[in-house]
Protein backbone atom coordinates (compact mmCIF):
# COMPACT_ATOMS: atom_id res chain seq x y z
CA UNK A 1 0.00 0.00 0.00
CA UNK A 2 2.80 2.34 0.94
CA UNK A 3 4.58 1.50 -2.29
CA UNK A 4 1.55 2.17 -4.41
CA UNK A 5 1.09 5.57 -2.88
CA UNK A 6 4.75 6.47 -3.14
CA UNK A 7 4.67 5.62 -6.82
CA UNK A 8 1.55 7.73 -7.22
CA UNK A 9 3.17 10.69 -5.49
CA UNK A 10 6.34 10.28 -7.47
CA UNK A 11 4.48 10.03 -10.75
CA UNK A 12 2.57 13.20 -10.09
CA UNK A 13 5.81 14.91 -9.18
CA UNK A 14 7.33 13.83 -12.48
CA UNK A 15 4.19 14.95 -14.33
CA UNK A 16 4.39 18.40 -12.76
CA UNK A 17 8.06 18.66 -13.55
CA UNK A 18 7.69 17.65 -17.17
CA UNK A 19 4.82 20.11 -17.59
CA UNK A 20 7.01 22.96 -16.40
CA UNK A 21 10.11 21.64 -18.08
CA UNK A 22 11.66 23.12 -21.20
CA UNK A 23 14.15 21.16 -23.21
CA UNK A 24 17.50 22.89 -23.23
CA UNK A 25 18.81 23.45 -26.73
CA UNK A 26 22.47 22.52 -26.56
CA UNK A 27 23.49 23.59 -30.05
CA UNK A 28 22.64 27.30 -29.60
CA UNK A 29 25.02 29.72 -27.89
CA UNK A 30 23.80 29.90 -24.31
CA UNK A 31 24.18 32.99 -22.08
CA UNK A 32 22.62 32.96 -18.59
CA UNK A 33 22.07 36.32 -16.88
CA UNK A 34 22.13 36.26 -13.08
CA UNK A 35 20.58 39.47 -11.86
CA UNK A 36 19.98 41.06 -8.46
CA UNK A 37 16.24 40.73 -8.63
CA UNK A 38 13.48 39.24 -10.68
CA UNK A 39 9.86 40.21 -10.15
CA UNK A 40 10.47 43.97 -9.87
CA UNK A 41 9.41 45.84 -13.03
CA UNK A 42 12.92 47.26 -13.44
CA UNK A 43 14.44 43.78 -13.69
CA UNK A 44 11.69 42.66 -16.01
CA UNK A 45 12.67 45.57 -18.29
CA UNK A 46 16.31 44.46 -18.14
CA UNK A 47 15.08 40.97 -19.03
CA UNK A 48 13.08 42.39 -21.95
CA UNK A 49 16.24 44.07 -23.27
CA UNK A 50 18.18 40.82 -22.89
CA UNK A 51 15.45 38.88 -24.69
CA UNK A 52 15.47 41.44 -27.49
CA UNK A 53 19.22 41.00 -27.96
CA UNK A 54 18.81 37.21 -27.75
CA UNK A 55 16.41 37.25 -30.71
CA UNK A 56 18.60 39.67 -32.64
CA UNK A 57 21.85 37.74 -32.16
CA UNK A 58 20.17 34.29 -32.26
CA UNK A 59 21.42 33.17 -28.85
CA UNK A 60 19.63 31.53 -25.92
CA UNK A 61 19.32 33.68 -22.80
CA UNK A 62 17.94 32.79 -19.36
CA UNK A 63 17.32 35.40 -16.68
CA UNK A 64 17.28 34.68 -12.96
CA UNK A 65 17.61 36.65 -9.75
CA UNK A 66 16.83 36.27 -6.02
CA UNK A 67 13.58 37.52 -4.48
CA UNK A 68 15.27 40.47 -2.84
CA UNK A 69 18.64 42.13 -2.77
CA UNK A 70 19.70 40.70 0.59
CA UNK A 71 19.77 37.05 -0.50
CA UNK A 72 23.46 36.86 -1.35
CA UNK A 73 23.73 33.09 -0.88
CA UNK A 74 20.70 32.33 -3.08
CA UNK A 75 22.29 34.36 -5.87
CA UNK A 76 25.48 32.31 -5.47
CA UNK A 77 23.44 29.11 -5.84
CA UNK A 78 21.95 30.49 -9.06
CA UNK A 79 25.38 31.37 -10.41
CA UNK A 80 26.65 27.90 -9.49
CA UNK A 81 23.79 26.20 -11.36
CA UNK A 82 24.31 28.49 -14.36
CA UNK A 83 28.01 27.57 -14.52
CA UNK A 84 27.13 23.87 -14.35
CA UNK A 85 25.38 24.28 -17.70
CA UNK A 86 28.76 25.21 -19.30
CA UNK A 87 27.52 28.43 -20.91
CA UNK A 88 29.53 30.24 -23.59
CA UNK A 89 29.36 33.51 -21.61
CA UNK A 90 27.64 34.76 -18.49
CA UNK A 91 26.01 38.04 -17.43
CA UNK A 92 26.19 38.85 -13.75
CA UNK A 93 25.08 41.65 -11.41
CA UNK A 94 26.72 40.87 -8.07
CA UNK A 95 24.94 41.44 -4.76
CA UNK A 96 28.30 40.97 -3.07
CA UNK A 97 31.40 40.63 -5.20
CA UNK A 98 33.55 38.96 -2.58
CA UNK A 99 31.02 36.24 -1.96
CA UNK A 100 30.90 35.48 -5.68
CA UNK A 101 34.65 35.58 -6.28
CA UNK A 102 35.36 31.81 -6.04
CA UNK A 103 32.70 31.09 -8.67
CA UNK A 104 33.86 33.95 -10.89
CA UNK A 105 37.40 32.52 -10.73
CA UNK A 106 35.94 29.18 -11.73
CA UNK A 107 34.33 30.86 -14.75
CA UNK A 108 37.60 32.56 -15.60
CA UNK A 109 39.48 29.24 -15.41
CA UNK A 110 36.90 27.64 -17.68
CA UNK A 111 37.41 30.56 -20.12
CA UNK A 112 33.79 31.67 -19.78
CA UNK A 113 33.68 35.44 -20.37
CA UNK A 114 31.84 37.32 -17.59
CA UNK A 115 29.92 40.50 -18.45
CA UNK A 116 28.86 42.57 -15.43
CA UNK A 117 25.69 44.63 -15.47
CA UNK A 118 23.74 47.09 -13.31
CA UNK A 119 25.74 47.63 -10.12
CA UNK A 120 28.35 45.38 -11.65
CA UNK A 121 31.05 43.23 -10.12
CA UNK A 122 33.81 44.85 -8.11
CA UNK A 123 36.72 42.85 -9.58
CA UNK A 124 38.85 42.63 -12.72
CA UNK A 125 37.31 39.35 -13.89
CA UNK A 126 34.40 40.86 -15.89
CA UNK A 127 35.42 42.05 -19.35
CA UNK A 128 33.07 45.02 -19.15
CA UNK A 129 30.18 46.46 -17.15
CA UNK A 130 26.91 47.72 -18.60
CA UNK A 131 25.66 50.17 -16.00
CA UNK A 132 24.09 53.45 -14.89
CA UNK A 133 26.22 56.00 -13.04
CA UNK A 134 23.94 56.08 -9.98
CA UNK A 135 25.89 58.77 -8.11
CA UNK A 136 25.66 61.17 -11.05
CA UNK A 137 22.00 60.27 -11.60
CA UNK A 138 21.07 60.97 -7.96
CA UNK A 139 23.07 64.22 -8.09
CA UNK A 140 20.93 65.27 -11.05
CA UNK A 141 17.86 64.52 -8.92
CA UNK A 142 19.31 66.78 -6.20
CA UNK A 143 19.89 69.62 -8.66
CA UNK A 144 16.34 69.32 -9.98
CA UNK A 145 15.00 69.26 -6.43
CA UNK A 146 16.94 72.43 -5.53
CA UNK A 147 15.68 74.13 -8.66
CA UNK A 148 12.05 73.18 -7.99
CA UNK A 149 11.93 74.21 -4.31
CA UNK A 150 13.88 77.42 -4.87
CA UNK A 151 17.18 76.45 -3.31
CA UNK A 152 16.14 76.24 0.35
CA UNK A 153 14.00 74.22 2.76
CA UNK A 154 13.67 70.80 4.30
CA UNK A 155 14.07 67.66 2.24
CA UNK A 156 13.72 63.96 3.16
CA UNK A 157 14.67 60.67 1.48
CA UNK A 158 13.12 57.22 1.35
CA UNK A 159 15.74 54.77 0.09
CA UNK A 160 15.33 51.05 -0.69
CA UNK A 161 18.18 49.82 1.50
CA UNK A 162 21.36 50.89 3.18
CA UNK A 163 23.55 47.91 2.30
CA UNK A 164 23.27 47.59 -1.49
CA UNK A 165 25.48 49.50 -3.91
CA UNK A 166 22.60 51.28 -5.66
CA UNK A 167 21.05 52.28 -2.33
CA UNK A 168 24.31 53.74 -1.06
CA UNK A 169 25.21 55.45 -4.35
CA UNK A 170 21.83 57.10 -4.83
CA UNK A 171 21.62 58.26 -1.22
CA UNK A 172 25.17 59.62 -1.19
CA UNK A 173 24.90 61.09 -4.68
CA UNK A 174 21.83 63.05 -3.61
CA UNK A 175 23.01 64.04 -0.12
CA UNK A 176 26.53 65.05 -1.16
CA UNK A 177 25.32 67.20 -4.04
CA UNK A 178 22.99 69.03 -1.64
CA UNK A 179 25.86 69.65 0.78
CA UNK A 180 28.22 70.86 -1.94
CA UNK A 181 25.99 72.94 -4.17
CA UNK A 182 22.85 73.73 -2.19
CA UNK A 183 23.86 74.53 1.39
CA UNK A 184 20.50 76.11 2.26
CA UNK A 185 18.70 72.83 1.81
CA UNK A 186 18.47 70.74 4.96
CA UNK A 187 18.13 66.97 4.78
CA UNK A 188 15.92 66.18 7.75
CA UNK A 189 15.54 62.42 7.47
CA UNK A 190 16.69 59.36 5.51
CA UNK A 191 14.70 56.17 6.02
CA UNK A 192 14.84 52.73 4.40
CA UNK A 193 11.78 50.82 3.19
CA UNK A 194 13.32 47.81 1.46
CA UNK A 195 11.88 49.01 -1.85
CA UNK A 196 8.52 47.76 -0.55
CA UNK A 197 5.67 50.08 -1.54
CA UNK A 198 3.59 49.62 1.59
CA UNK A 199 6.50 49.88 3.99
CA UNK A 200 7.79 52.96 2.15
CA UNK A 201 4.31 54.52 2.32
CA UNK A 202 4.21 54.14 6.11
CA UNK A 203 7.72 55.53 6.46
CA UNK A 204 6.94 58.52 4.23
CA UNK A 205 3.74 59.24 6.15
CA UNK A 206 5.65 59.27 9.42
CA UNK A 207 8.21 61.67 7.95
CA UNK A 208 5.44 63.97 6.68
CA UNK A 209 3.77 63.90 10.09
CA UNK A 210 7.02 64.83 11.80
CA UNK A 211 7.92 67.61 9.34
CA UNK A 212 4.87 69.67 8.42
CA UNK A 213 7.11 72.18 6.62
CA UNK A 214 8.77 69.58 4.37
CA UNK A 215 9.47 71.04 0.93
CA UNK A 216 10.90 68.09 -0.97
CA UNK A 217 10.82 64.29 -0.93
CA UNK A 218 13.11 61.94 -2.89
CA UNK A 219 12.26 58.25 -3.38
CA UNK A 220 15.40 56.42 -4.46
CA UNK A 221 13.85 53.53 -6.40
CA UNK A 222 10.49 52.59 -7.84
CA UNK A 223 9.01 51.10 -4.67
CA UNK A 224 10.30 53.95 -2.48
CA UNK A 225 9.04 56.60 -4.90
CA UNK A 226 5.56 55.08 -5.06
CA UNK A 227 5.56 54.92 -1.27
CA UNK A 228 6.24 58.66 -1.12
CA UNK A 229 3.50 59.35 -3.67
CA UNK A 230 1.01 57.25 -1.68
CA UNK A 231 1.93 59.08 1.50
CA UNK A 232 1.44 62.52 -0.08
CA UNK A 233 -1.91 61.39 -1.51
CA UNK A 234 -3.14 59.81 1.74
CA UNK A 235 -2.13 62.69 4.00
CA UNK A 236 -3.11 65.34 1.48
CA UNK A 237 0.14 67.16 2.20
CA UNK A 238 0.48 70.41 0.26
CA UNK A 239 3.56 72.00 -1.23
CA UNK A 240 5.77 68.91 -1.19
CA UNK A 241 7.86 68.41 -4.32
CA UNK A 242 8.29 64.69 -4.98
CA UNK A 243 11.09 63.31 -7.13
CA UNK A 244 11.23 59.63 -7.98
CA UNK A 245 13.59 57.13 -9.56
CA UNK A 246 13.00 54.58 -12.33
CA UNK A 247 9.57 54.32 -13.95
CA UNK A 248 6.62 51.91 -13.87
CA UNK A 249 2.96 52.60 -14.57
CA UNK A 250 2.18 54.02 -11.10
CA UNK A 251 5.06 56.47 -11.14
CA UNK A 252 4.27 57.64 -14.68
CA UNK A 253 0.66 58.23 -13.64
CA UNK A 254 1.79 60.20 -10.58
CA UNK A 255 3.81 62.50 -12.82
CA UNK A 256 0.85 62.98 -15.16
CA UNK A 257 -1.38 63.77 -12.15
CA UNK A 258 1.15 66.29 -10.87
CA UNK A 259 1.71 64.53 -7.52
CA UNK A 260 5.26 63.82 -8.59
CA UNK A 261 7.34 66.56 -10.19
CA UNK A 262 9.52 64.23 -12.17
CA UNK A 263 11.91 61.32 -11.87
CA UNK A 264 15.26 59.95 -12.93
CA UNK A 265 15.09 57.02 -15.27
CA UNK A 266 17.83 54.61 -16.06
CA UNK A 267 17.78 52.66 -19.26
CA UNK A 268 17.00 49.11 -18.03
CA UNK A 269 16.13 47.79 -21.46
CA UNK A 270 19.49 49.13 -22.65
CA UNK A 271 21.28 47.46 -19.72
CA UNK A 272 19.86 44.05 -20.64
CA UNK A 273 20.46 44.57 -24.34
CA UNK A 274 24.05 45.82 -23.96
CA UNK A 275 24.90 42.96 -21.58
CA UNK A 276 23.90 40.28 -24.06
CA UNK A 277 25.46 42.20 -26.95
CA UNK A 278 28.76 42.49 -25.05
CA UNK A 279 28.60 38.76 -24.23
CA UNK A 280 28.16 37.92 -27.91
CA UNK A 281 31.09 40.19 -28.80
CA UNK A 282 33.23 38.57 -26.08
CA UNK A 283 32.47 35.09 -27.43
CA UNK A 284 33.63 36.27 -30.85
CA UNK A 285 36.79 37.61 -29.23
CA UNK A 286 36.07 41.27 -29.99
CA UNK A 287 37.48 44.17 -27.94
CA UNK A 288 35.19 45.67 -25.30
CA UNK A 289 35.38 49.03 -23.48
CA UNK A 290 35.91 48.93 -19.68
CA UNK A 291 32.39 50.19 -19.01
CA UNK A 292 29.33 50.59 -21.17
CA UNK A 293 27.41 53.64 -19.91
CA UNK A 294 23.79 52.88 -20.55
CA UNK A 295 22.78 56.38 -19.51
CA UNK A 296 20.13 58.09 -17.37
CA UNK A 297 17.55 60.80 -18.01
CA UNK A 298 15.44 63.32 -16.14
CA UNK A 299 11.82 63.07 -17.16
CA UNK A 300 8.71 65.00 -16.22
CA UNK A 301 5.33 65.95 -17.65
CA UNK A 302 6.92 67.97 -20.45
CA UNK A 303 9.14 65.31 -22.01
CA UNK A 304 7.82 61.91 -20.93
CA UNK A 305 5.98 61.35 -24.19
CA UNK A 306 8.94 62.26 -26.38
CA UNK A 307 10.30 59.31 -28.36
CA UNK A 308 13.71 59.50 -26.68
CA UNK A 309 12.28 59.21 -23.15
CA UNK A 310 9.27 56.97 -23.72
CA UNK A 311 11.60 54.37 -25.22
CA UNK A 312 13.41 53.89 -21.87
CA UNK A 313 10.34 54.06 -19.61
CA UNK A 314 8.60 50.84 -18.69
CA UNK A 315 5.16 50.13 -17.26
Amino acid at each position, binding site marked *: *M*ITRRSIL*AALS*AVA*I*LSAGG*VAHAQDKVYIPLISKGFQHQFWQAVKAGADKAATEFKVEVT*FEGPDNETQVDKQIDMLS*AALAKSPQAIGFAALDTQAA*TPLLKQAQDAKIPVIAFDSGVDSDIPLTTATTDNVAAAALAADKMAELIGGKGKVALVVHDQTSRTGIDRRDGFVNRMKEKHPDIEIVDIQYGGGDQLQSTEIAKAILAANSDLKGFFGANEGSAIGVVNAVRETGAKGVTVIGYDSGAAQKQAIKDGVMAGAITQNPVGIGYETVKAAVMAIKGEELPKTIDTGFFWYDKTNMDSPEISAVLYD
Partner: protein
Amino acid sequence: MTMIVQSEVKKRTSSGVHQKLLAFASLIIMLVFFSLASSNFLQTSNIIGILQATSVNGVLAVGVTLVIITGGIDLSVGTLMTFTAVIAGVVLTYLGMPLLFGIVAAIGAGAFCGFISGTLVARMKVPPFIATLGMMLILKGTSLVISGTKPIYFNNTPGFSQISTGSLIGQVFPFLPIPNGVLILFVVATVVAFILNRTALGRYTFALGSNEEAARLSGVDTDFWKICVYSLSGGICGVAGLIIASRLNSAQPALGLGYELDAIAAVVIGGTSLAGGRGSILGTIIGAFIMSVLLNGLRIMSVAQEWQTIVTGLIIILAVYADMVRRQRT
Protein backbone atom coordinates in the same frame (compact mmCIF):
# COMPACT_ATOMS: atom_id res chain seq x y z
CA MET B 1 3.98 7.30 33.41
CA THR B 2 7.50 7.45 32.06
CA MET B 3 6.83 4.05 30.51
CA ILE B 4 3.78 5.36 28.74
CA VAL B 5 5.77 8.28 27.43
CA GLN B 6 8.48 5.93 26.27
CA SER B 7 6.14 3.52 24.50
CA GLU B 8 4.43 6.46 22.87
CA VAL B 9 7.76 7.66 21.58
CA LYS B 10 8.51 4.21 20.19
CA LYS B 11 5.19 4.05 18.39
CA ARG B 12 5.69 7.47 16.89
CA THR B 13 9.21 6.91 15.66
CA SER B 14 8.30 3.63 13.95
CA SER B 15 5.39 5.26 12.10
CA GLY B 16 7.86 7.85 10.80
CA VAL B 17 9.81 5.18 8.91
CA HIS B 18 7.26 4.97 6.12
CA GLN B 19 7.18 8.72 5.65
CA LYS B 20 10.97 8.71 5.39
CA LEU B 21 10.75 5.97 2.76
CA LEU B 22 8.20 7.99 0.84
CA ALA B 23 10.31 11.15 1.01
CA PHE B 24 13.45 9.23 0.15
CA ALA B 25 11.76 7.59 -2.85
CA SER B 26 10.66 11.04 -4.08
CA LEU B 27 14.21 12.30 -3.74
CA ILE B 28 15.61 9.38 -5.74
CA ILE B 29 12.97 9.77 -8.44
CA MET B 30 13.79 13.47 -8.68
CA LEU B 31 17.50 12.70 -9.06
CA VAL B 32 16.81 10.13 -11.79
CA PHE B 33 14.42 12.46 -13.57
CA PHE B 34 16.82 15.42 -13.65
CA SER B 35 19.73 13.20 -14.68
CA LEU B 36 17.71 12.03 -17.67
CA ALA B 37 16.43 15.52 -18.46
CA SER B 38 19.85 17.17 -18.61
CA SER B 39 23.34 15.80 -18.99
CA ASN B 40 24.63 18.75 -16.97
CA PHE B 41 22.80 17.68 -13.83
CA LEU B 42 24.86 14.68 -12.74
CA GLN B 43 28.34 16.19 -12.90
CA THR B 44 30.57 16.55 -9.87
CA SER B 45 30.59 20.35 -9.78
CA ASN B 46 26.79 20.50 -9.89
CA ILE B 47 26.33 17.81 -7.23
CA ILE B 48 28.71 19.76 -5.02
CA GLY B 49 26.71 22.89 -5.78
CA ILE B 50 23.56 21.12 -4.57
CA LEU B 51 25.27 19.86 -1.41
CA GLN B 52 26.57 23.33 -0.67
CA ALA B 53 23.18 24.92 -1.29
CA THR B 54 21.67 22.46 1.22
CA SER B 55 24.19 22.93 4.01
CA VAL B 56 22.77 26.15 5.48
CA ASN B 57 19.09 25.32 5.08
CA GLY B 58 19.77 21.77 6.28
CA VAL B 59 21.40 22.89 9.51
CA LEU B 60 18.66 25.45 10.18
CA ALA B 61 16.03 22.80 9.49
CA VAL B 62 17.66 20.38 11.94
CA GLY B 63 17.50 23.07 14.62
CA VAL B 64 13.90 24.00 13.96
CA THR B 65 12.90 20.30 13.84
CA LEU B 66 13.59 20.05 17.57
CA VAL B 67 11.37 23.04 18.34
CA ILE B 68 8.60 21.79 16.06
CA ILE B 69 8.62 18.36 17.72
CA THR B 70 7.87 20.08 21.05
CA GLY B 71 4.79 21.53 19.37
CA GLY B 72 6.39 24.95 19.07
CA ILE B 73 7.67 26.95 16.12
CA ASP B 74 10.74 29.10 15.68
CA LEU B 75 10.43 31.95 13.18
CA SER B 76 13.67 33.54 14.29
CA VAL B 77 16.08 30.91 12.91
CA GLY B 78 16.93 32.87 9.73
CA THR B 79 17.72 36.18 11.38
CA LEU B 80 19.33 34.40 14.34
CA MET B 81 21.68 32.75 11.86
CA THR B 82 22.55 36.19 10.50
CA PHE B 83 22.96 37.58 14.01
CA THR B 84 25.47 34.86 14.93
CA ALA B 85 27.35 35.49 11.68
CA VAL B 86 27.56 39.18 12.59
CA ILE B 87 28.78 38.25 16.10
CA ALA B 88 31.51 36.13 14.51
CA GLY B 89 32.38 39.12 12.33
CA VAL B 90 32.61 41.43 15.32
CA VAL B 91 34.81 39.03 17.29
CA LEU B 92 37.11 38.08 14.40
CA THR B 93 37.30 41.20 12.26
CA TYR B 94 36.51 44.11 14.61
CA LEU B 95 38.23 42.69 17.69
CA GLY B 96 40.81 40.65 15.79
CA MET B 97 40.54 37.63 18.06
CA PRO B 98 41.61 34.09 16.99
CA LEU B 99 39.30 31.87 14.94
CA LEU B 100 38.26 29.62 17.82
CA PHE B 101 36.81 32.59 19.75
CA GLY B 102 34.69 33.53 16.74
CA ILE B 103 33.29 30.02 16.51
CA VAL B 104 32.53 29.82 20.23
CA ALA B 105 31.00 33.32 20.21
CA ALA B 106 28.69 32.55 17.28
CA ILE B 107 27.42 29.28 18.74
CA GLY B 108 27.22 30.81 22.22
CA ALA B 109 25.26 33.81 20.95
CA GLY B 110 22.89 31.44 19.14
CA ALA B 111 22.34 29.34 22.24
CA PHE B 112 21.80 32.47 24.35
CA CYS B 113 19.14 33.84 21.97
CA GLY B 114 17.52 30.40 21.94
CA PHE B 115 17.56 30.52 25.74
CA ILE B 116 15.70 33.85 25.66
CA SER B 117 13.10 32.50 23.21
CA GLY B 118 12.75 29.38 25.32
CA THR B 119 12.29 31.40 28.51
CA LEU B 120 9.67 33.59 26.84
CA VAL B 121 7.77 30.52 25.68
CA ALA B 122 8.18 28.24 28.71
CA ARG B 123 8.23 30.55 31.72
CA MET B 124 6.40 33.64 30.48
CA LYS B 125 3.90 31.62 28.41
CA VAL B 126 4.21 33.83 25.32
CA PRO B 127 2.95 31.75 22.35
CA PRO B 128 5.99 30.43 20.39
CA PHE B 129 4.78 32.05 17.16
CA ILE B 130 4.72 35.49 18.78
CA ALA B 131 7.84 35.10 20.92
CA THR B 132 9.97 34.00 17.98
CA LEU B 133 8.38 36.51 15.60
CA GLY B 134 9.48 39.20 18.04
CA MET B 135 12.94 37.66 18.28
CA MET B 136 13.13 37.51 14.48
CA LEU B 137 12.62 41.28 14.22
CA ILE B 138 14.81 42.13 17.22
CA LEU B 139 17.66 40.07 15.81
CA LYS B 140 17.29 41.52 12.31
CA GLY B 141 17.52 45.03 13.69
CA THR B 142 20.32 44.19 16.11
CA SER B 143 22.39 42.67 13.29
CA LEU B 144 22.05 45.90 11.30
CA VAL B 145 22.92 48.04 14.33
CA ILE B 146 25.97 46.01 15.38
CA SER B 147 27.37 45.75 11.87
CA GLY B 148 26.75 49.42 11.05
CA THR B 149 24.47 48.14 8.22
CA LYS B 150 27.52 47.03 6.23
CA PRO B 151 28.70 43.51 5.47
CA ILE B 152 31.61 42.47 7.71
CA TYR B 153 34.35 40.71 5.74
CA PHE B 154 36.65 38.04 7.13
CA ASN B 155 39.73 38.90 5.10
CA ASN B 156 41.89 39.11 8.24
CA THR B 157 41.01 35.58 9.32
CA PRO B 158 42.42 33.42 6.53
CA GLY B 159 41.21 30.10 7.97
CA PHE B 160 37.61 31.29 8.23
CA SER B 161 36.52 30.56 4.67
CA GLN B 162 37.80 26.99 5.12
CA ILE B 163 35.00 26.28 7.64
CA SER B 164 32.53 25.92 4.80
CA THR B 165 34.44 25.91 1.52
CA GLY B 166 37.51 23.85 2.41
CA SER B 167 37.30 20.10 2.04
CA LEU B 168 38.67 17.74 4.69
CA ILE B 169 37.12 14.81 2.81
CA GLY B 170 38.82 15.99 -0.38
CA GLN B 171 42.19 15.89 1.38
CA VAL B 172 41.72 12.21 2.19
CA PHE B 173 39.87 11.23 -0.98
CA PRO B 174 40.88 13.64 -3.78
CA PHE B 175 38.04 12.43 -6.01
CA LEU B 176 35.43 13.51 -3.42
CA PRO B 177 35.91 17.26 -2.88
CA ILE B 178 32.87 17.56 -0.61
CA PRO B 179 32.93 20.96 1.11
CA ASN B 180 33.26 21.10 4.89
CA GLY B 181 29.92 22.89 5.16
CA VAL B 182 28.26 19.67 4.04
CA LEU B 183 30.37 17.62 6.43
CA ILE B 184 29.24 19.92 9.25
CA LEU B 185 25.61 19.42 8.20
CA PHE B 186 25.97 15.64 8.53
CA VAL B 187 27.84 15.88 11.83
CA VAL B 188 25.17 18.19 13.28
CA ALA B 189 22.41 15.92 11.98
CA THR B 190 24.03 12.81 13.46
CA VAL B 191 24.61 14.41 16.85
CA VAL B 192 21.08 15.80 17.03
CA ALA B 193 19.58 12.50 15.89
CA PHE B 194 21.52 10.82 18.70
CA ILE B 195 20.27 13.36 21.25
CA LEU B 196 16.72 12.95 20.01
CA ASN B 197 16.65 9.15 20.08
CA ARG B 198 19.04 8.18 22.86
CA THR B 199 18.99 10.82 25.58
CA ALA B 200 16.60 12.17 28.20
CA LEU B 201 16.47 15.50 26.37
CA GLY B 202 15.28 13.69 23.24
CA ARG B 203 12.62 11.72 25.13
CA TYR B 204 11.28 14.87 26.76
CA THR B 205 11.31 16.70 23.42
CA PHE B 206 8.82 14.15 22.07
CA ALA B 207 6.91 14.10 25.35
CA LEU B 208 6.47 17.89 25.29
CA GLY B 209 4.99 17.69 21.81
CA SER B 210 2.69 14.72 22.29
CA ASN B 211 1.27 15.57 25.71
CA GLU B 212 2.91 18.32 27.69
CA GLU B 213 0.33 18.15 30.48
CA ALA B 214 0.90 14.40 31.00
CA ALA B 215 4.63 14.95 31.11
CA ARG B 216 4.24 17.72 33.67
CA LEU B 217 1.91 15.64 35.85
CA SER B 218 4.40 12.78 35.82
CA GLY B 219 6.95 15.07 37.42
CA VAL B 220 8.93 16.25 34.41
CA ASP B 221 10.18 19.85 34.65
CA THR B 222 8.69 20.70 31.27
CA ASP B 223 9.70 24.38 31.36
CA PHE B 224 13.33 23.49 31.94
CA TRP B 225 13.44 20.97 29.08
CA LYS B 226 11.65 23.31 26.74
CA ILE B 227 14.24 26.02 27.41
CA CYS B 228 16.95 23.40 26.75
CA VAL B 229 15.39 22.56 23.38
CA TYR B 230 15.20 26.21 22.29
CA SER B 231 18.77 26.82 23.46
CA LEU B 232 20.06 23.79 21.55
CA SER B 233 18.16 24.92 18.47
CA GLY B 234 19.68 28.40 18.86
CA GLY B 235 23.18 26.95 19.13
CA ILE B 236 22.56 25.01 15.92
CA CYS B 237 21.55 28.28 14.22
CA GLY B 238 24.96 29.54 15.32
CA VAL B 239 26.55 26.70 13.36
CA ALA B 240 24.46 27.68 10.32
CA GLY B 241 25.61 31.28 10.80
CA LEU B 242 29.23 30.16 10.67
CA ILE B 243 28.65 28.09 7.54
CA ILE B 244 26.93 30.91 5.62
CA ALA B 245 29.42 33.56 6.77
CA SER B 246 32.30 31.32 5.80
CA ARG B 247 30.76 30.55 2.43
CA LEU B 248 30.20 34.23 1.63
CA ASN B 249 33.44 35.23 3.42
CA SER B 250 31.29 37.91 5.01
CA ALA B 251 28.49 38.45 7.50
CA GLN B 252 25.62 39.95 5.47
CA PRO B 253 23.53 41.78 8.08
CA ALA B 254 20.39 42.25 5.98
CA LEU B 255 20.10 38.60 4.97
CA GLY B 256 18.01 35.97 6.74
CA LEU B 257 14.38 37.04 6.53
CA GLY B 258 12.42 34.29 4.77
CA TYR B 259 15.00 31.60 5.48
CA GLU B 260 12.90 30.35 8.40
CA LEU B 261 10.16 29.36 5.94
CA ASP B 262 12.60 27.33 3.81
CA ALA B 263 13.75 25.55 6.95
CA ILE B 264 10.19 24.88 8.13
CA ALA B 265 9.27 23.61 4.64
CA ALA B 266 12.16 21.12 4.74
CA VAL B 267 11.02 19.91 8.17
CA VAL B 268 7.43 19.42 7.03
CA ILE B 269 8.38 17.68 3.77
CA GLY B 270 10.49 15.36 5.91
CA GLY B 271 7.36 14.21 7.75
CA THR B 272 7.63 16.10 11.02
CA SER B 273 4.20 17.14 12.24
CA LEU B 274 3.61 20.84 12.91
CA ALA B 275 1.28 19.65 15.69
CA GLY B 276 4.31 18.29 17.52
CA GLY B 277 5.23 14.94 19.06
CA ARG B 278 6.36 13.32 15.82
CA GLY B 279 9.35 13.82 13.57
CA SER B 280 12.86 12.80 12.69
CA ILE B 281 16.17 14.34 11.74
CA LEU B 282 16.70 11.95 8.83
CA GLY B 283 13.36 13.06 7.39
CA THR B 284 14.34 16.70 7.74
CA ILE B 285 17.66 16.14 5.94
CA ILE B 286 15.83 14.39 3.11
CA GLY B 287 13.31 17.24 3.04
CA ALA B 288 16.11 19.82 2.78
CA PHE B 289 17.68 17.86 -0.09
CA ILE B 290 14.35 17.53 -1.90
CA MET B 291 14.06 21.32 -1.87
CA SER B 292 17.56 22.04 -3.13
CA VAL B 293 17.61 19.22 -5.71
CA LEU B 294 14.28 20.43 -7.07
CA LEU B 295 15.43 24.04 -7.38
CA ASN B 296 18.80 23.13 -8.88
CA GLY B 297 17.26 20.66 -11.32
CA LEU B 298 14.74 23.20 -12.54
CA ARG B 299 17.53 25.73 -13.03
CA ILE B 300 19.66 23.23 -14.92
CA MET B 301 16.68 22.56 -17.17
CA SER B 302 16.41 26.35 -17.74
CA VAL B 303 12.84 26.41 -16.45
CA ALA B 304 11.68 30.03 -16.16
CA GLN B 305 11.98 31.37 -12.63
CA GLU B 306 8.28 32.04 -12.12
CA TRP B 307 7.60 28.36 -12.88
CA GLN B 308 10.32 27.22 -10.50
CA THR B 309 8.45 28.92 -7.67
CA ILE B 310 5.12 27.37 -8.66
CA VAL B 311 6.58 23.86 -8.89
CA THR B 312 8.29 24.22 -5.50
CA GLY B 313 4.98 25.24 -3.95
CA LEU B 314 3.18 22.28 -5.52
CA ILE B 315 5.81 19.83 -4.30
CA ILE B 316 5.52 21.09 -0.71
CA ILE B 317 1.74 20.67 -0.73
CA LEU B 318 1.99 17.28 -2.45
CA ALA B 319 4.55 15.99 0.05
CA VAL B 320 2.48 16.96 3.06
CA TYR B 321 -0.77 15.72 1.49
CA ALA B 322 0.76 12.32 0.72
CA ASP B 323 1.85 12.10 4.35
CA MET B 324 -1.63 12.96 5.64
CA VAL B 325 -3.35 10.42 3.40
CA ARG B 326 -0.95 7.74 4.56
CA ARG B 327 -1.50 8.53 8.21
CA GLN B 328 -5.29 8.56 7.97
CA ARG B 329 -5.29 5.04 6.57
CA THR B 330 -2.91 3.51 9.10
